[in-house]
């Protein structure tokens, strides 16, 4: 049957058909299952980052303590930062992208279901590689790994290499995901779902995906350059041969600043969904909020050197970045005001998801204001590299992003689990979180301005930092209590909670028009969208006559539902990357780069098999 010019083995591996149990998870391409896998994995990793933070706070509870050594502490803060950003917040956001975007745009799945699965397995591999690096010595050069601390001379151990390779692998996962969601959002919107009828969460996710596509390659290059310096004595960051260590900072932060918007925009999207539902009012200034998000994403490329105000770029460069950084506060403020406009005059139900979203506004405001203080670069010379920076970071990322994510978890819990959680326990979690957040992180502003540098494993007696450090440490336990309440609440109820209806919140967007949880194919019939907040308008009958934009509604409306099939190859390809990554770090095992080669081979097999995958047609 094949008449190829060279002999090729005729291997036919059929696609899995209705796999069960663990195989069904390994081969799934269903965006909802993938979303759940991301969510659970990311949450566990978030807890691991929390343990790292708790140990750090115990060490700093008083002056000159000896809970952990300097070496371990330095690994802890590096791993905590890397974990929280790449292994917690980003994949938690991915969990939401995965679960919700097809539902919100009226699609049956994403544009590339196997690529979607590949992104998850690759993420898992990268995450494992990073966390396993604790064995034998994790990276200890800070989450932004400044050269030349990361050079082979300064850091001969493999910790840095694991950090580099795991970030590269995670980058592949993120890029795959971003490509997928860009195509999905552009190309799989239901008829009538114009751009300005897109739910805000999907809009923010789209903007985030574009940021990912443009930002990640820059850190990829930076990490490649560092790898070549470490492995092959290249000169990228080699001061002795004319290299500049400041180049690393520029490359890193050109990625790093858009990265923080990647972290916060999805969270802002979640808040923009929750507030209208529990105010029974539409989002105030929808178009403005969309535009503000786009402007933030665009301007986010022009501010990176505000992370480098003390590096000696000179007053002219510092002035430019001061101005751009101050300017970016404006669209951020616009969003805040529009959220308040949303609840103003509404009928507010102060349940758990709503409380978390309101808490987000309250806490993100503080983080945003400390951010503006950083932008005042003349004084940033005093704030930089002190505890004032972690104070800012944790208000925007913990009181900000994580609070919004928690709001989203509680909000969509009935949808993805089909069950209802305990509202009382949810509120308890909220209050523990609010109190814990402020007790832990507000004092950091104080000690920062009191001269306490960051990333120090201990501090001297008599500096006056004892009290507020002790308070901050106490706050951690309040936060831990909150998360224990959450795990208990959601864990129990996911199993045995009361059944949730399709639309327990009387909400506004399409995911609430289908069952909880949705069927495998999402929509029996692809909806025809007639307005923004289409589901709300359908329920309360205020639709205007709208014309579907493009594509015949007939195409999307056919009664045969074609669902993408499960596949082995995404997981196999990810495995190849995982093995290859280890092969690069352990490149002298048995034979130079042997395992890197094996990893490459597995990846190539995976890619070929994926491309040529037979389509099983039961008919």
């Amino acid at each position, binding site marked *: 049957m094949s008449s*190829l010019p*060279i002999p090729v083995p005729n291997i036919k591996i059929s696609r899995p*058909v209705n796999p069960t149990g663990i195989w069904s998870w390994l081969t799934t391409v269903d965006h909802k299952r993938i979303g759940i896998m991301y969510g659970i994995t990311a949450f566990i990793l978030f807890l691991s980052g929390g343990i790292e933070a708790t140990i750090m706070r115990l060490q700093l509870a008083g002056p000159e303590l000896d809970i952990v050594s300097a070496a371990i502490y330095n690994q802890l803060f590096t791993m905590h930062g890397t974990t929280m950003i790449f292994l917690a917040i980003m994949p938690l956001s991915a969990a939401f992208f995965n679960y919700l975007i097809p539902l919100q745009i009226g699609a049956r799945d994403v544009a590339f279901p196997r690529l979607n699965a590949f992104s998850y397995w690759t993420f898992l591999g990268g995450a494992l590689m990073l966390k396993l690096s604790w064995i034998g010595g994790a990276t200890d050069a800070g989450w932004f790994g400044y050269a030349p601390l990361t050079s082979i001379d300064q850091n001969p151990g493999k910790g840095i290499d694991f950090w580099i390779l795991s970030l590269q692998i995670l980058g592949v996962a993120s890029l795959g995901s971003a490509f997928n969601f860009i*195509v999905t959002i552009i190309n799989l919107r239901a008829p009538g779902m114009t751009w300005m009828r897109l739910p805000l969460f999907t809009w923010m996710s789209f903007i985030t995906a574009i940021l990912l596509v443009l930002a990640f390659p820059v850190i990829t*290059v930076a990490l490649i350059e560092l790898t070549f310096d470490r492995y092959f004595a290249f000169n990228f960051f080699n001061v002795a041969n004319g290299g500049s260590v400041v*180049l690393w900072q520029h490359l890193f932060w050109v990625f790093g600043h858009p990265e923080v918007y990647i972290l916060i925009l999805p969270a802002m999207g979640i808040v923009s969904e929750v507030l209208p539902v529990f105010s029974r009012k539409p989002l105030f200034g929808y178009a403005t909020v969309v535009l503000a998000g786009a402007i933030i994403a665009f301007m986010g490329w022009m501010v990176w050197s505000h992370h480098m105000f003390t590096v000696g770029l000179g007053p002219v460069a510092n002035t430019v970045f001061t101005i751009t950084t101050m300017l970016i506060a404006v669209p951020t403020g616009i969003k805040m005001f529009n959220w308040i406009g949303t609840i103003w005059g509404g009928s507010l139900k102060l349940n758990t998801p709503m409380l978390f979203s309101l808490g987000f506004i309250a806490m993100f405001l503080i983080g945003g204001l400390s951010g503006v203080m950083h932008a005042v670069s003349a004084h940033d010379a005093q704030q930089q590299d002190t505890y004032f920076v972690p104070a800012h970071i944790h208000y925007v990322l913990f009181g900000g992003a994580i609070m919004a994510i928690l709001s989203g978890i509680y909000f969509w819990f009935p949808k993805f689990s089909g069950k209802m959680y305990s509202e009382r326990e949810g509120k308890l979690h909220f209050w523990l979180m609010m109190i814990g957040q402020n007790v832990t992180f507000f004092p950091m502003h104080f000690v920062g301005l009191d001269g306490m540098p960051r990333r120090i494993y201990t501090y001297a007696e008599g500096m006056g930092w004892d009290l507020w450090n002790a308070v901050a440490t106490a706050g951690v336990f309040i936060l831990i209590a909150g998360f224990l309440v959450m795990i208990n609440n959601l864990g129990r109820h996911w199993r045995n909670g009361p059944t949730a209806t399709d639309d327990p919140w009387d909400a506004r967007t399409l995911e609430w028009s289908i069952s909880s949880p949705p069927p495998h194919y999402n929509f*029996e019939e692809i909806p025809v969208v007639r307005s923004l907040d289409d589901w709300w308008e359908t329920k309360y009958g205020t639709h205007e006559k709208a014309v579907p934009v493009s594509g015949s509604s007939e195409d999307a409306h056919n009664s045969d539902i074609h669902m993408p099939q499960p596949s082995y190859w995404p997981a196999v390809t990810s495995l190849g990357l995982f093995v290859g990554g280890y092969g690069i770090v352990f490149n002298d095992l048995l034979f130079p780069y042997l395992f890197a080669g094996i990893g490459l081979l597995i990846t190539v097999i995976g890619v*070929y098999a994926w491309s040529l995958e037979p389509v099983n047609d039961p008919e």
Partner: protein
Amino acid sequence: MSTDVHNNTHEDHDYTTTGLNHRKMLMWAFLGSDCMFFGALIATYLVYQGKSLVGPYPIDVFDIPVTSVSTFVLLMSSMSMVLAYAALTQNKINGFRIWMASTAIMGATFIGFQVYEFSSFSTFHVDIESCAEQKVKYGKFDDYEAELCSNAKDDHVETHDGLKPQTNLFGTTFYTLTGFHGAHVTLGIVWILSLLFLSYKKGMITPERHLDVDLAALYWHFVDVVWIVIFTVIYLFGVFPFPGS
């Protein structure tokens, strides 16, 4: 209403909001990221341009005539790729195969030139019979000669050190940038050869499935455009000074 759920994909004919194909859009998104990738490498090169502490310098090693030939070959390979795609859409499978093979061969030729270039740079050798006479003969030294002669103990200077990535910033940035470009070309060649081989399997490469080739072509053209940028910015601007500079 019972819903027939079929496990099937006719992705190329399925409904899309814009009417554009998913995979085409994916390739464009990917190329966007690849732009940033090469952009960061080119930016690194430019930041370090002129900052090497020791030679050899671009003007010592670059051979513009030779590199112009390889650039031309790569450009022609893009044309050949266009012809391959055109042949496929007209159901001329043999023409398709010929042009695909020719694209791969030209791509491989380009890689061959790169290999030659890398090896000649890394064994670049300077032999100055007499530093004193050299200076008189040419009026002045170029930077590398000046360096070698000033460090030398006697009048005759010979070095086989060549340009390696470890030698200086120029070596580091040049080999990394062009090396990754070469890797992209190589991947493209593998892709093209794969499509070529698949065309012998019945029903794999047909005019209806032209998208498969279209995607490879898009990637190939992108890699070619990146080379045009590299050739211009690194080679040409590296050797020919701007007027007035």
